[in-house]
């Protein structure tokens, strides 16, 4: 395997990469590809998910992940490994309690009394503090923690753009609720990390009006919360078959059907009426779609943040496809 050309990584000091995006834009895929790309630079990477969807297991085609850091990809010599962790709320809460309070019996009692249900249902801020708290712990590990694995970077497959500010802004969620106490303390610590130079929030979009609008709104919101923005990844891009001039021709006076017929004949294809009409129609639709995408593309470049692009893989995303996307991200310097 040849290594991708030596592009300098854009985010050298960043330890926590938060990846968000509107539903359907492929944020989980991008998060996984980013984790692979970062590991290829020679560091161990932890890929976390928090939405109990087992998306990582599906992407990497491995059995469902427990609440436990599992190695899912072992890199070749010189590169790191990728570990995965599916964070679920109940386990995070119990672990948190065990860590700070040495609860043996009480932990079980909490479960019995429905306290965990209670926390999931009524205390949204508390839930997010616990989920982000686990990520915080993984990022902040160092040699002092005996036996714990240290990661060069942590990639968080976060909730979608519509909920990301709320999810990351754990501090505010708790304001007015927990004014003191350890969970408040934890919220402050998490917020400190998220706002620091060690963290970046990356946004995944596709070239359509609504996802791009959500990306723009999301960036404004995150900036308002002083959460540092990373890059915008435009996912699922199509190959460009017609250049600008050709598209203008297609959308303007249209293509010459006679020339098309002659060309088809030359190429050994019988130019039936449905085929010619179909090709012209396909060309028009393609041109229209690309035109629209160009507009969205411009809105993204106007954002003044680093941008990256990943193609739509013709056969869908499988493990091999993930490696291709990881290489793309590395070539573009995101990883």
């Amino acid at each position: 395997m040849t290594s991708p050309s030596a592009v300098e990584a854009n985010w050298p000091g960043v330890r926590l990469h938060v990846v968000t995006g509107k539903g359907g834009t492929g944020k989980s895929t991008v998060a996984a590809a980013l984790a692979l790309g970062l590991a290829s630079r020679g560091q161990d990477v932890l890929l976390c998910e928090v939405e109990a969807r087992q998306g990582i297991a599906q992407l990497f085609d491995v059995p469902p992940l427990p609440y436990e850091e599992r190695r899912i990809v072992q890199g070749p010599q010189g590169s790191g490994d990728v570990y995965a962790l599916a964070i679920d709320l109940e386990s995070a809460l119990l672990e948190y309690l065990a860590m700070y309070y040495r609860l043996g019996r009480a932990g079980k009692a909490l479960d019995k009394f429905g306290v965990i249900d209670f926390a999931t249902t009524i205390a949204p801020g508390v839930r997010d503090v616990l989920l982000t708290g686990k990520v915080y712990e993984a990022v902040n590990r160092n040699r002092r923690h005996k036996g714990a694995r240290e990661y060069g970077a942590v990639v968080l497959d976060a909730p979608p753009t519509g909920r990301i500010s709320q999810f990351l802004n754990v501090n505010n969620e708790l304001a007015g609720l927990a004014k003191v106490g350890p969970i408040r303390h934890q919220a402050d610590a998490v917020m400190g990390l998220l706002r620091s130079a060690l963290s970046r929030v990356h946004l995944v979009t596709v070239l359509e009006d609504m996802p791009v609008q959500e990306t723009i709104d999301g960036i404004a919101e995150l900036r308002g919360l002083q959460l540092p923005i990373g890059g915008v990844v435009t996912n699922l891009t199509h190959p460009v078959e017609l250049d600008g001039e050709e598209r203008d021709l297609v959308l303007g006076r249209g293509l010459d059907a006679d020339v098309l017929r002659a060309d088809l004949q030359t190429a050994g294809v019988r130019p039936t009426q449905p085929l010619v009409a179909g090709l012209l129609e396909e060309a028009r639709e393609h041109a229209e779609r690309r035109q629209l995408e160009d507009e969205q593309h411009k809105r993204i470049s106007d954002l003044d943040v680093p941008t990256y692009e990943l193609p739509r893989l013709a056969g869908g995303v499988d493990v091999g496809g993930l490696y291709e996307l990881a290489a793309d991200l590395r070539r573009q310097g995101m990883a």
Partner: protein
Amino acid sequence: MSTARSRVGPLVAPLEGSAPLDVDALLADRSTDIVVCCGSGGVGKTTTSAALALRAAEQGRKVVVLTIDPARRLAQSMGIEKLDNVPRPVPGVRAAGGSLDAMMLDMKRTFDDVVESQASPEKAAQILSNPFYIALSSSFAGTQEYMAMEKLGQLHADAEATGHWDLIVVDTPPSRSALDFLDAPERLAGFLDGRFIRLLLFPAKGPARLMTAGLSLVTNTLSKVLGAQLLRDVQSFVAALDTLFGGFRQRAQKTYELLQAGGTSFLVVAAPEPDALREAAYFVERLSEERMPLAGLVVNRAHREPQGRLSVERALVAAERLEGGTDDDPEQTGSGGLTAALLRLHADQGRIVARETRLRERFAAAHPDVPTAVVPALSTDVHDLDGLRRVGHLLAASSQ
């Protein structure tokens, strides 16, 4: 829900695929009074619901559509960019005897309304200003689902009382999991009946006293973790809300029954992608498990079958011939390159269509009883009534 579930469906695939979904018949059927569009995020649920509502209205139904989070320009063109939680007439509908009203859900306001309608003014004021209530009503991840269902219940009651509408079309929130909104009423009821809440309300009374030791352990731990202030807020919130519990539970139960009733039809919306179809499969199975009336599956954003009988392989070969030119004339210019590009587009589309068709056939094999409408992707955005009319037309045309 991460618990393992068994599959629900037939054991062998039927010989032919699923039946086409006849959207017009569904909308014309006067006994249909609620249509719920559900599915994972990013599959065009909002557009589908709006298009169905408009089509029904222009075919003479008196429709109200409840949307959750429409694209800004679509909301503007429907006259619902302002959040006031009340249905407004949509301008520009060519209604022959029908009408179309639309609204966008304001979840906090809906929640406030419920509290105000259920509690005395003083008590309502007390609840509305409780910090816990504020957090719960404006940001709790499940609140949107609860409130969408609550609003549906309200609209339905209004419709029955005033006769103002005879069809309600509901868009569902883009949930973390497609199942969230089905679980919402039960989760709310379950939560409010939870033992912990009961214990917070009635500590150490009657037989519960036996559990007091365990409870104080729990509350002590909680106040250590959350801080005593938070726990006090929760307690006063729960106490204030106590009188409403029965009401909440009843409403949740009623909405659930409304969803199961004969007049309701669920449409599962998906895109021809593995993830979206997986979610759709969950949904279809879950709906049949809960005996919710499923009308069919809408597959949006499908690529159009390329016209003319030219296979992917032959199109690519022809493109290569045109592009490569000949050895004497390697600089083939003129339209040859453009025609080659068209042929490659044709091949590309053929490949995508083949993949999408395979995905749909797999779905149909596992869920053969689900009538399906396939809606081709539009090459432009939908942000006005004309766009919605086109989508509605495509939805209906799929059964022909």
